[in-house]
């Protein structure tokens, strides 16, 4: 096959994809790019507002709790756990795609199950965090946390936090649903009949993107 020739001048001459990927995967990349702009717009709006505001709450004072921890002061602890859960679930997703290359149905199913568990664990963590913050009086339009220097804060802090982590959480949720659909199709043997596991790869791209966005959300809200 001549497909090992990739970036020669001939790649635009027609007859095959100049991107050397299947149509659906290319479209997934373009979708993720547009989604990156959506998240980017949110995060830039957040940054702009933060730069335009006198003072801002200290994330280490706001995000300092973990389940069953009572009122202990433990900044960054819970969110680090969430971050690692998402990284690990990303790894299991790569392994699922890898097993798909080897046409190993059982392997794909195993790693997809682990990925789904990771996604659900992350969502549970986020649900707990939202519930906890809500019980402290934080919600859209309500911010009980003073600025780092003790001055009056604006509700922009909570508005952006809940909007952006909520939008990300919704992506995680849809990622879990997509992965469950993939798992069902794997177990039914759909991809074995089709002869390839490209669909799992596309779901994997989406899942990694969710992890990628969390890298940015984690840094922008909890660390910086």
């Amino acid at each position: 096959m001549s497909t090992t020739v990739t970036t020669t001048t001939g790649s635009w001459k027609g007859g095959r994809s100049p991107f050397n990927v299947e149509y659906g995967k290319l479209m997934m990349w373009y979708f993720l790019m547009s989604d990156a702009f959506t998240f980017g717009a949110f995060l830039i709006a957040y940054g702009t507002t933060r730069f335009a505001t006198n003072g801002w709450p200290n994330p280490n004072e706001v995000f300092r709790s973990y389940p069953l921890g009572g009122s202990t002061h433990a900044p960054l602890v819970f969110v680090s756990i969430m971050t690692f859960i998402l990284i690990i679930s990303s790894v299991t997703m790569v392994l699922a795609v890898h097993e798909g290359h080897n046409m190993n149905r059982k392997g794909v199913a195993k790693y997809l199950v682990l990925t789904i568990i990771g996604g659900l664990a992350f969502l549970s963590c986020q649900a707990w965090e939202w519930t906890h913050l809500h019980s402290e009086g934080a919600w859209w339009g309500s911010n009980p946390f003073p600025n780092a220097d003790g001055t009056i804060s604006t509700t922009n802090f909570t508005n952006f936090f809940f909007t952006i982590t909520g939008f990300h959480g919704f992506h995680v949720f849809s990622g879990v649903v997509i992965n469950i659909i993939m798992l069902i199709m794997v177990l039914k043997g759909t991809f074995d009949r089709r002869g390839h596991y490209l669909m799992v790869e596309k779901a994997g791209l989406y899942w990694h993107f969710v992890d990628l966005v969390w890298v940015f959300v984690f840094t922008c809200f909890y660390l910086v």
Partner: protein
Amino acid sequence: MDHTLESLEAEQHVGGGKKEIWRVTIILSVLTLVELALGFSMMDMPSDSLAKHFIKGVIIILMLAKAVYIVGFFMHLKHEVRNLIMTVCVPLFLFVWFIIAFLTDGNSFKNDKNKWDRNHEERSKEPMPKQDESTHKLE
């Protein structure tokens, strides 16, 4: 022949396989741990100190490094053809302009508002009133 199976054929022979997956996993974990260590180290610094801004800059660079590893290896982009890499990455450079333009704009908005609306600046220096439990409840 449709290019679905062709590209599958081509993709199977690129990338480092499982070894590469574990290598990237370790790199991502280490970068995250370094980020967290930096986060802890700057906790007690005054919020406007130069050292704190420097650490924040380092954290953002580490964040971008993590993004490169996730997109490049987990999403496999590094092993795709150049055409695809370019079509995905080049538009993202718009963010360079977005970030510079919008953050500068936000900053100048703050400075102008503090300069021309003294009342705004005075108000933002008032301490936050202590909230009792009843105000925590949301209607």
